């Protein structure tokens, strides 16, 4: 079975309060040199059968219509090697 990963991130121009809160906490924790933090979602899908173009097209559609809210989010679909 193959693993397909869908990364969903807020569009760059959209406010990301979570990422901001994390970033603001960093100096307090003694971490500096990190200019920006954005927080998004990662979906790991276990796909039955071959991950061919047709399967990827379907997963793209799934990401576009369901996993991501394209009004405010962008997404990337990647096939991962199974370890």
């Amino acid at each position, binding site marked *: 079975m193959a693993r397909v990963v869908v990364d969903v991130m807020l569009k760059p121009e959209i*406010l990301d309060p979570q990422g901001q809160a994390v970033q603001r906490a960093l100096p307090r924790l003694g971490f500096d040199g990190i200019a920006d933090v954005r927080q998004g979602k990662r979906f790991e899908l276990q796909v039955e059968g071959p991950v061919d173009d047709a399967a990827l097209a379907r997963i793209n559609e799934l990401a576009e219509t369901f996993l991501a809210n394209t009004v405010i989010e962008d997404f990337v679909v990647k096939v991962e090697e199974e370890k």
Partner: protein
Amino acid sequence: MSLDTVEHAAETPDTEQPWKELGLKEDEYARIREILGRRPTGAELAMYSVMWSEHCSYKSSKVHLKQFGEKVPANDAMLVGIGENAGVVDVGQGYAVTFKVESHNHPSYIEPYQGAATGVGGIVRDILAMGARPVAVVDPLRFGAADHPDTRRVLPGVVAGIGGYGNCLGLPNIGGEVVFDACYQGNPLVNAGCIGVMKHEDIHLAQASGPGNKVILYGARTGGDGIGGVSVLASETFESTGPAKRPAVQVGDPFQEKLLIECTLEIFKEKLVAGIQDLGGAGLSCATSELASAGSGGMRVELDTVPLRDSSLSPEEILMSESQERMCAIVEPQHVDRFLEICEKWDVIATVIGEVTEGSQLEIFWHGEQIVDVPPRSVAHEGPTYHRPFARPSWQDALQADDAGRLARPANGAELREQVLKLVGSPNQASKSWITDQYDRFVQGNTVLAMPEDAGMVRIDEESNLGVAMATDGNGRYAKLDPYTGAQLALAESYRNVAATGAKPLAISDCLNFGSPEDPDVMWQFAEATRGLADGCLELGTPVTGGNVSLYNQTGETAIHPTPVVAVLGVIDDVTRRTPVAFAEEGQLLYLLGDTHEEFGGSAWSEVVHQHLGGLPPKVDLGREKLLGEILISASRDGMIDAAHDLSDGGLIQAVTESCLRGGKGARLVVPDSLDAFTFLFSESAGRAVVSVPRSEELRFNDMCGARGLPVTRIGVVDGDEIEVQGEFAIPLSELRTAHEGTLKDLFA
């Protein structure tokens, strides 16, 4: 990219400007040129276009809204009236209460979660800007058909957004409405209300006076949110270097807003502000022009000092940005340091962006060059006024003639029983707990009553037990049949709900949701509804303290039902005397207050059983509503009743079912001689309530009603674990509970 300065605008009168794309009419653009004596700069055009929009200027509605200021009942508790961020009423003991309802309909259709969340955020800042601590929120909602697939997208998102924002903010949600109707399919209504409390001396107004005083912007950084339309300007007038498409959707940060609230309240406590305004629609354009306009007029703003989230924003975009969780304060110079210190304490970014000046112009600079030089009143308060044509729709008579009285009625007890179960389990009449359990109703530790009570109630003074109550109501079906009466019925129901808890209704706010004002049918509905509401408020003695209008709620040619939502605020001297809805004491007597007629037009029964909408809505008798209210309040204060529930959609059987389920006790009902069982159970005559009276109080209660001339009928007793209508049918509570409480879960969980 060259900057469109004031000087440049004066020199280039013939430059083409995208006024049309920004939604201005030709004559409006001409008027702007006339006011300024030249063409506007890009920044000025942006400001005028958004401030003169329907949303900000109320240009179609204000000729009708005027009545709320004219038909003002005497002897009112109003401290601050319409025109400010929110009205303020005196509730005694030195306390003042401010409250308001606003719509966030269109954004919630596009992005349900964020649209609803930022709706809550916006109304809370309005209340905060008056100087008050927000103490509770309410959320009247309307969705398309319950079983429509898109409702599955919109409703869970809206509910999660309202909960997500309100819960994180620490404001108890104490009431609201959920109504389903196909007419709201492409236009859900997401109205949000907030109540705030302060001492009289703490009332703050949105005005900038005192030359030399500083203008401080504080809260979130400004980003490219909600400026979709204005990007046109950046890209067409100039060669924009920023992202081509700015988002029309705003994302809320309730955590930031919580900090903003605490920080602002601490600033109020130290009396550090001379004027204050929240940033909502039209962002800085609105805040600066309104503050200046309400003050002496002059203000100078250095726009490049505004802290940005996105450095590519153009000055027009900064002026228009609707980034959430921001406030603007006018502060005397000697208080600035302390002001900034308090902001720092709460991790809130605060920046001096300008000052109040001697002059009468609002002047805005960008990198040292002047891009705005306008009389602020012309932007904020002197927008266009339309006298839109209106006329009674051609279909209105036919609709009213289609009398619900002719619909087939249940023929026997078995059919009645079946229809009762169908009614109480229909999406509109079903329990809303699947939704309301997602809202924190306990936070702040002052909630006396919350869903599913008739009105929400919060204690505002721990020593004296002073409290306030609020209910919101609106019935679009009634208003469609007759908008004048429909608006009065919304008012009457909300008033009745508040009185049923034992609180005295004081004043109202409203949210008027209608279709396109360019349609004379819709404008007629609007004119009728506002007239009905204003007349009703005059008669009931409850002034309109403020509200909100949402127009263009329509899909293509089809408008939503006219939906005036009314929020009534009441006060109760001692919250320990409040009346809940639950029938909890076995053996107590049930009395029906008021008169029941054969009134089924627009009723829940006609909808659920016959999918019918026609005829006339129930008649309104506001004198009777007032009397009923007085009786309910006296009875509660004097301990004559243990429970009360107003009768509204669904009629008596709906109210009795809710009260029985809430108390976990059954009831035996007897149909009064003067009525048939069907009318008794399903009629929606207004001005009624059902109460539970301890036997020891029966005489006293009857005497009081008799002495004051309110019809009262003994209809049964609290008893057992079923609802029995004698001679007709009986339904076990467990069966009613399954029908009533399962519906929304099955649809949306």
